[in-house]
């Protein structure tokens, strides 16, 4: 691939929609004020964990003033069978998990809908449920593949023999709890029908995919479905595909003949929109006395629901991280009576790297090799399992740069020996990685009659800065100033485009925008600007032709932990991330996004835990009062930097995704720092003070 010349790329214009956001003028999905009389829908969650809805007595509420419709499994319009079984809402009487939507009320005001929903009497036939994931669960089985299409198990070399012969071994089991995405904006949908045409304003990470899914569900030609996601209040994977609020909105709007809003409550966000599966991960490492790995085994146990199989790719990072003579990875899945887990920021890599990078720290302790050095010592020349060369890999540079900046060199490896008043002090390191995916996308570019250019692509800005970086990329491709370019996104009518997911937005959309801009520039140069030129591009062929290398981003995370001797309280006064993520398009938005990922990793390390009540089969702490996410006061000195990385193979822009890598490895860095501070190894997240108290030095 030929590198492109950049001018705007690499600069830091402020966020294009920033003024709209700081003045309250930005209109998120359900905030459209031009639609007249809207109705409101409030869903009714199941109060059993497994069984059937026997009857919904809607008579009492159907007559209440303001109630327009009560949707139940008996009367809800029939939908075509969706690819995503969660979307078949109210299509049958089965209850597969507590909190599953089993009815909904539509009313002229939200409060009326809620009141009616709360007083709706539902009779269930309840059967015993099984909601607790355990190491030896009888339902554990081998899924056919793990997300999105990785082999479930891999084996390379003789792991058992290597472990038996190893001078040093680590054998430990790590656990991560259910973690809930919780974007600040709950899922919010506003559906409007005009004849047989559906317009959906929704908070989604991809309008085009949503259009396709809804068209199928409602048996419409895709052109009859229009999905708009102009501003999205965060997603972190939970808005990656259309969710059932959108289906309910579309269904209800057709029933009542007016626009319908469905805005989920925070409590709903813990059940129906997905979450990160809990994991139980056994890692076994074998090494020689110098810490050179001879064997790596990583076996993950995780859960899915009975509605659909979601198999998280928990151990895939282990397949690419370190050189070793032998390697074995596996995934086992139990389909339980629980809400369906889905994608959450770095699904797979995030929990998987907590286990692997904790184990690497344990190996460093066991061999006496410095934790930075042991990672450098096991750096592979090529991607270990595939044998492919890396398009670029700068883990070692990130580790070294981080060690320098963090002041690692003077570190005393002994755990539990540093005190600063009532605090035990320690430092830890962990590696990060995330694949550099790219998806085919279409885009258009046009010269506007009054001057300037407009570029259209069905991208989504979920807070990343996509609108801004695409404007920079378009300006460079068109060889004009950013002020001359208007990029329009968030609209399915702009055609097929990759999701804002898998950290592939900028790579995928940027590729298409580059090609559209280049082609329009060439046409203008050839024909002269007559003000009516428009070009359309599709990167499918080019993207398919990207092959021959292993494409991943890498990074190193450094943490300092302070643990209160008496209370076990953990503070993290310093966090530093150093990343090798290709070309940075906009340092201002990039730094913010990387730090945001690291903070979510810190939150995972110390706070976040969906607590399952096995007796009831639900997450008991299903709001921000009981489910803690990091607040301003939990974060101290935190920074993200990047090493210079030119990658001419990954895509024409040389960018790797930055949305997810920031969260990968953070929790391990914190746990390793806590071990260094206290001598207590916490292998099950989050690192609560009760897990430390018994082991603190006196």
């Amino acid at each position, binding site marked *: 691939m030929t590198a492109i010349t950049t001018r705007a790329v690499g600069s830091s214009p402020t966020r294009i929609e920033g003024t709209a956001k700081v003045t*309250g003028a930005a209109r998120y999905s359900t905030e459209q004020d031009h639609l007249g009389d809207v109705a409101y829908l409030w869903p009714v969650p199941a109060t059993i964990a497994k069984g059937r809805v026997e009857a919904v007595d809607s008579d009492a509420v159907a007559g209440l003033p303001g109630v327009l419709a009560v949707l139940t499994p008996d009367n809800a319009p029939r939908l075509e069978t969706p690819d995503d079984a969660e979307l078949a809402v109210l299509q049958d009487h089965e209850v597969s998990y507590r909190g599953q939507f089993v009815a909904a009320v539509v009313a002229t005001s939200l409060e009326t809908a809620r009141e009616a929903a709360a007083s709706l009497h539902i009779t269930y036939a309840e059967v015993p449920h099984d909601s607790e994931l355990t190491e030896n669960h009888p339902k554990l089985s081998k899924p056919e593949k793990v997300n999105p299409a990785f082999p479930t198990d891999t084996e390379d070399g003789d792991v058992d023999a290597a472990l038996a012969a190893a001078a040093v071994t680590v054998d430990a089991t790590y656990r991560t709890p259910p973690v809930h995405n919780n974007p600040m904006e709950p899922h919010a949908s506003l559906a409007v029908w005009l004849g047989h045409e559906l317009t959906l304003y929704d908070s989604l990470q991809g309008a085009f995919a949503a259009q396709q899914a809804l068209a199928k569900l409602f048996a419409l030609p895709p052109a009859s479905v229009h999905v708009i996601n102009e501003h999205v209040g965060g997603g972190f994977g939970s808005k990656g595909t259309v969710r059932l609020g959108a289906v309910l909105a579309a269904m209800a709007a057709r029933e009542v003949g007016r626009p319908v809003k469905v805005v989920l409550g925070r409590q709903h966000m813990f059940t129906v929109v997905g979450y990160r599966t809990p994991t139980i991960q056994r890692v076994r490492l074998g090494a020689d006395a110098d810490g050179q790995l001879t064997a790596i085994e990583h076996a993950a146990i995780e859960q899915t629901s009975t509605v659909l199989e979601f198999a998280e790719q928990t151990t895939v990072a282990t397949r690419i991280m370190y050189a070793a003579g032998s390697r074995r990875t596996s995934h086992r899945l139990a389909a339980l009576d629980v809400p369906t887990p889905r994608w959450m920021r770095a699904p797979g890599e995030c929990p998987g790297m907590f286990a692997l990078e904790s184990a690497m720290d344990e190996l460093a302790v066991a061999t006496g090799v410095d934790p930075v050095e042991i990672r450098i010592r096991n750096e592979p020349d090529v991607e270990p399992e595939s044998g492919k060369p890396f398009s670029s890999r700068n883990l070692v540079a990130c580790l070294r740069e981080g060690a320098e900046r963090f002041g690692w060199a003077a570190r005393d490896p002994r755990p539990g020996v540093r005190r600063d008043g009532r605090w035990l002090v320690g430092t830890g390191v962990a590696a990060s990685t995330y694949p550099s995916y790219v998806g085919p996308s279409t885009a258009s570019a046009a010269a506007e009659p009054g001057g300037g250019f407009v570029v259209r692509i069905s991208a989504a800005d979920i807070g990343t800065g996509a609108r801004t970086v695409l404007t920079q990329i378009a300006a460079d491709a068109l060889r004009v100033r950013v002020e001359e370019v208007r990029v329009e996104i968030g609209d399915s009518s702009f055609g097929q485009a990759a999701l804002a997911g898998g950290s592939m937005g900028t790579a995928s959309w940027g590729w298409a925008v580059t090609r559209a801009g280049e082609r329009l520039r060439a046409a203008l140069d050839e024909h002269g600007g007559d003000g009516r030129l428009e070009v359309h591009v599709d990167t499918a062929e080019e993207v398919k032709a990207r092959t021959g290398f292993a494409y991943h981003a890498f990074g190193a995370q450094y943490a300092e932990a302070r643990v209160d001797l008496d209370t076990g309280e953990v503070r993290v006064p310093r966090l530093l991330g150093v990343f090798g993520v290709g070309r940075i398009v906009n340092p201002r938005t990039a730094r913010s996004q990387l730090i945001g990922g690291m903070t979510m990793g810190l939150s995972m390390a110390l706070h976040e835990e969906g607590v399952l009540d096995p007796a009831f089969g639900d997450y008991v702490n299903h709001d921000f009062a009981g489910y803690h996410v990091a607040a301003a006061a939990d974060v101290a000195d935190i920074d993200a930097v990047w090493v210079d990385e030119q990658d001419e193979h990954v895509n024409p822009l040389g960018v790797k995704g930055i949305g997810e890598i920031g969260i990968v490895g953070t929790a391990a860095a914190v746990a390793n720092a806590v071990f260094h501070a206290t001598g207590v190894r916490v292998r099950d997240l989050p690192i609560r003070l009760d897990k430390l108290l018994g082991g603190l030095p006196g």
Partner: protein
Amino acid sequence: MRITTTVNGQQRVVDDVWEGESLLYVLRERMGLPGSKNACEQGECGSCTVYLDGVTACACLVAGGQAEGREVVTVEALADADGLHPVQEAFLECGAVQCGFCTPGLLVQTHDLLARTGRPSDPEIREALAGNLCRCTGYEKILDAVRLASERMASR
């Protein structure tokens, strides 16, 4: 019921408000002011922070009827004819805005902090903003923005 209240300097009258409706609902759904966001509806996240008679409050925890005869100021009124308020400018410049959903509440809370405390220390900032959750930025850029706004306002 009818509510008569002053919102962003203008007298507003809304009818048919149900007694249980929150001020946030009245602002967003009845007055066409969706700048204040609903993200938890229980006063945990601060996304709906507004001024009520000059004191910041989570509009989700205030009944609409409690605003009767009182003065409400929302994020929509922080900028004036001269342009953005220094707090808004600083949030933009520092990269403190990502998805933007927590932003309105943080802006109002910061506006209040800097009105009360000219040059707050970092612990004072973190304390003042502890009730405003953000899931995107990691807070660091928000801290930068508050420091920058504080410097600029102090030098004016």
